């Protein structure tokens, strides 16, 4: 937030700042619950997963903001927002229906299921945005790096939750990866804001994994 305040237009990246502010609040809340109830308490575990779902929804808003920046010249921002909100509601209902059919410990299962699906839908949306960046030959380095780091974050978390769903015993793998991704995202955003100004550009053909 501080970087964007000093190095770039705060309003332009408002949704990213909103996510960062929420992230600070959630982490403070987690610390309070952790100190009062302990790491293995059900209070902390519930708070951790529900706050994680809320943060993911904030990340959806950040993604919406990025869509608005990339598509601002085409004037389709409003339609995109409506589409993404419908997708968010659809994902929540889908997760609820999957769990409702199968489990007895519904609440805990629901939160893992919805987190997995939210991260996966976030990943798909980021992937679509990345494809649009390449198609529209977007060349602003800051936007490109923010979108790519968001893609890395979503894919690590989606893979981790999927692994967790399939193999609950592999805790040593899925226990640490989300933490690493959670550290990576703010560092990558700080780097993008500190290193490049809003108009710094590069050739989009250099970015595709397969050379064009």
């Amino acid at each position, binding site marked *: 937030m501080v970087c964007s305040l000093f190095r770039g237009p705060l309003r332009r990246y408002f949704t990213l700042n909103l996510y960062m502010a929420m992230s600070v609040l959630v982490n403070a809340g987690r610390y309070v619950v952790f100190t009062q109830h302990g790491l293995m308490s059900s209070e902390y575990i519930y708070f951790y997963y529900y706050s994680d779902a809320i943060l993911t929804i904030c990340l959806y808003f950040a993604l919406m903001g990025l869509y608005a920046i990339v598509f601002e010249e085409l004037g389709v921002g409003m339609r995109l927002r409506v589409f993404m909100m419908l997708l968010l509601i659809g994902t929540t209902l889908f997760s609820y229906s999957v769990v409702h059919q199968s489990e007895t410990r519904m609440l805990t299962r629901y939160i893992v299921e919805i987190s*997995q699906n939210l991260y*996966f839908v976030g*990943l798909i949306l*980021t*992937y679509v945005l*990345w494809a649009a960046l390449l198609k529209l030959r977007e060349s602003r*380095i800051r936007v*490109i*790096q923010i979108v*790519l*780091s968001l*893609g*890395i974050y979503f*894919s*690590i978390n*989606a*893979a981790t*939750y*999927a*692994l967790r*769903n*399939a193999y609950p015993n592999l805790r040593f793998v899925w226990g640490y990866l989300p933490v690493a991704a959670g550290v990576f995202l703010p*560092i*990558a955003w700080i*780097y993008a804001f*500190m*290193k*490049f100004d809003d108009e*710094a550009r*590069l*050739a989009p053909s*250099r*970015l*595709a*994994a397969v*050379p064009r």
Partner: protein
Amino acid sequence: MMAAVIFVFSVAALMQFFVSYCRSLIAASARRALSSDVQDVIGIRRSASGDDFDRVMQYLYLCPDRREDRNGIKAIGAYFRMLGAVAKVMGRLIPSLRVWTESERSQCAYFAAVALDRRIAHNRDMFAEQMSA
């Protein structure tokens, strides 16, 4: 089944995002020319070879580091090692992939050389500031 599909797709997307992210870091420094001092020290003029990477990294570790560069260098180091592994495993089967990985590795070496150039310039500025104070 659903979890397996999500896992496979996520890992594939992660690789693609990671490669593109590293390429965006490299591309940002590719246009920058090296100073003549650094060119003389490391023997790289306009383009580098993948084999230069380790040598340039050793120079980088000798130089007092800058916090801004640290994460980018780590990411490119991981990307370089990943490219090496891909070239070893798949390079014999797909020759075009081998050519591509070598070209990427050489750009990683150039990125490291630019980072070294920045570090040396930064340290020179710090030294000059201290001398003038």
